[in-house]
């Protein structure tokens, strides 16, 4: 009986209907999974940024102790000749020390006094010397001055040292905490904007260490990189895109460029070490060598971006120029390259941002040395910002953690600014044909 069998047989639509619920559930699950992945990615970004901002923002202020300093002529210039060379050799520590000791006359024991003296940074005497150098009339005067506090005091004030921990586990002893509290009660503990962090070179004392030297090193390195990689990158792109015949050689160059873009950066460091330093005898730790290495590293990025920019210029432009009698070279340099320039510049900025954040190859060519002086040119030994971050991250002092984070914040600010500029430029000047 055909009718009966029809009723018994399960029709396809029933199969579909019974499984439909399950399939929709699976669909929703898949969708949630995808959404979860996006959220997870965004979560990573925010954790990273909050962690670093949270650790670093306190470094932009620095604890100072307000003291009344007597510029004692007997200490600074006993002979009264006002000779700056003599004065520079004077014991300015005595001045700052006396100023602090006069607030705590009850401290007399030698060890206690030493602990009291250690509350001021070893940079404080230098601060006084600079003041005298600036204005010799200060000698013999009394002035109220904010002197830089030691990094331990700074950490205590900023709450990075646990007051409740047992004394033996703490870098700051009970006695010193009592002194700090007393100073705070008198309103002598001040948080001031940390200018030193931006202008000073590196230092073993966290409260004196700054990114000025590293920033100057980064500047010179990037300058060398830009001056070399932009012209070479654009020239290579122009040749490959506009002039090169299609043959084995140009294929080889293309494959080469694509592969170089993916070679680990540390390998470029090995190249720099073996070629520029050992073979050519260029100086170690110099921004010149760093710039050369970073040039080789960023060239593929710039060439690829510049070629894309050239490719987007429509052939009609070229044909029109050729049609009115321009030579091939004139066509390219008078018409195609100017039209492709925004795209090329965008690629260059992105390449520069890459170079600014690069660390590993610079370790190889010795830009990791501890350098106090601020470099004055591309041949002076120096470090760069990311290497400074690496060096400080290795330092045991708690105060360096906040400085490292602050240096990272500055670095990220530069990178974000560069990338935003590139994006804006692309939006502003991009032409759709």
């Amino acid at each position, binding site marked *: 009986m055909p009718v009966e069998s029809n009723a018994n047989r399960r029709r396809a639509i029933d199969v579909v209907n019974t499984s439909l619920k399950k399939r929709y559930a699976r669909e929703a699950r898949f969708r949630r999974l995808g959404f979860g992945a996006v959220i997870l990615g965004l979560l990573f970004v925010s954790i990273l940024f909050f962690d670093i901002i949270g650790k670093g923002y306190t470094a932009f202020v620095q604890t100072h102790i307000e003291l009344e300093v007597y510029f004692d002529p007997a200490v600074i210039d006993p002979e009264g000749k006002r000779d700056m060379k003599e004065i520079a050799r004077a014991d300015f520590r005595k001045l700052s020390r006396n100023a602090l000791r006069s607030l705590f006359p009850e401290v007399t024991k030698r060890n206690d006094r030493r602990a009291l003296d250690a509350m001021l940074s070893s940079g404080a005497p230098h601060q006084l010397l600079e003041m005298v150098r600036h204005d010799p009339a200060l000698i013999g005067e009394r002035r109220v001055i904010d002197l830089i506090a030691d990094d331990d005091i700074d950490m205590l004030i900023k709450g990075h040292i646990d007051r409740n921990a047992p004394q033996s586990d703490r870098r700051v002893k009970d006695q010193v905490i009592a002194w700090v509290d007393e100073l705070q009660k008198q309103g002598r503990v001040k948080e001031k904007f940390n200018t030193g962090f931006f202008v000073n070179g590196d230092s073993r004392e966290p409260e004196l260490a700054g990114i000025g030297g590293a920033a100057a090193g980064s500047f010179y390195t990037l300058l060398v990189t830009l001056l070399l990689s932009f012209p070479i990158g654009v020239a290579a792109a122009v040749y490959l895109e506009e002039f090169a015949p299609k043959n084995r050689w140009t294929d080889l160059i293309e494959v*080469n460029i694509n592969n*170089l873009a*993916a070679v680990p950066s540390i390998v470029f460091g090995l190249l720099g070490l073996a070629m520029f330093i050992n073979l050519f005898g260029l100086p170690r730790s110099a921004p010149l060598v760093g710039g050369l290495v970073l040039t080789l590293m960023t060239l593929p990025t710039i060439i690829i971006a510049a070629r894309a920019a050239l490719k987007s210029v429509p052939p009609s432009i070229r044909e029109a120029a050729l049609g009115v009698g321009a030579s091939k070279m004139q066509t390219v340099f008078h018409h195609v390259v100017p039209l492709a320039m925004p795209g090329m510049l965008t690629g260059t900025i992105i390449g520069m941002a890459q170079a600014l954040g690069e660390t590993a190859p610079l370790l*190889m060519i010795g830009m990791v040395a501890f350098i106090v002086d601020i470099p004055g040119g591309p041949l002076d030994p120096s470090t760069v910002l990311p290497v400074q971050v690496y060096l400080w991250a290795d330092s045991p002092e708690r105060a360096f953690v906040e400085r490292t984070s602050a240096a990272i914040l500055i*670095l990220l600010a530069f990178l974000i600014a560069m990338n935003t500029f590139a994006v804006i430029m692309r939006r502003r000047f991009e032409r759709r044909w």
Partner: protein
Amino acid sequence: MHTPILILVLLGVMAFAFHLGRTRSLATVGGRTGVRKLHSLPAYYGFYTALWAGLPALLVAGLWVFFEGSVITSLVVEGLPAALRDQPPAQLGLLVNDITNLANGNIVSRAVDADLRAAADHMNELRTIGKMALSVVVLSIALGAGSLAWRSVGPSMRARNRVERIVNGLLIVSSLIAIFTTVGIVMSVLFESFRFFHKIPLTDFLFGLEWSPQIALRADQVGASGAFGAIPLFAGTLLISAIALFVAVPIGLMSAIYLADYAGPRLRSYAKPVLEVLAGVPTVVYGFFAALTLAPAIRGAGEAMGLTVSSESALAAGLVMGVMIIPFVSSLSDDVINAVPQSLRDASYALGATRSETIRQVILPAALPGIMGGVLLAASRAIGETMIVVMAAGLSANLTLNPLDSVTTVTVQIVTLLVGDQEFDSAKTLAAFALGLLLFIVTLGLNIVALHIVRKYREQYE
């Protein structure tokens, strides 16, 4: 004359030569009115003269800047008294360093005696002579070549063609730099590696199970056996890269799928650039995060569960590296998924498949080769990544698969072997170059295979 000033002077000479060449071309045809008799525009005669005045001189100056150091050093060594000269190369190198420091007015590591002082003076003298000679030579080349070019300027000279030929040559040289770089990389790591394999057999290096590059100076020194078996490094590198891919591939792939197929335009326009930020963060920042935030957190969590976790666990480095390559995986997968033709999707929807079924059963299988290529590229990134592992992974070469243990990687070892004081020629330093060679070969191989797969896959649908 200092080199930068010399370059500036040279640029001035070029500008002047441009002017002279241009004026002469006009003068030969009797001023502006005769300009039609010239073969090229007057400016081309100027460019021609300027290029001849500048390029040869710049070339000479550039060569000198590159070789000045080695030439002067070898001349100074030649001039040393025989007793000082006949030392082993390492000692001699130290001596040369001291002489250079003394000549620069820096601190010297040994007592300054008459010989040293004489050598330093000799060096300074050579430098002054070198600088002067360079200025004279460069300027005379510039003037000579410039005036030759200037004299050849005339109405029938094909200045434009000549200038274009020179420019074309410059363009070719620029594009060859990519090849020079590759050759330079191969040469520099290959030579040092050969010297390394001279001391340590290749098989010991590739298959040895123990890595401890400190060479014992005394017989009784602990932990300094000078073993160069790279297997623990490979294992460590693979372990960390595997953890990284384990994080990055699912998250990157799923977020690419979600952003491409499900997300509304608003979410997409915000989420995509934010995820791209992860790719722009310098690796040293990730390293800092891994070492100071994640590693202690993992350690704390592990100890709360009663596990022993090393403070430099492979897990922390791997996780952070995974986060770093998420945008890499997701943008590559995005490209690949978008390359699957719409007709395949439409066909699947027409058969009644849901979106997720279409993705899982049609798009992913079709895009699989491309995704594999992307994963391989990500893997080569992870293997070559340096700063995260230098800061967050350990130094001790443990042969283990436990992600809570501390392992070391190829790149970490390259950095530790080459940063700081190093003696050249020692197996320890050369080992870094052997590791570099290996790293280069492996990443190059991965890249070539991956790019090949991606390209082939793309052609399939074009």
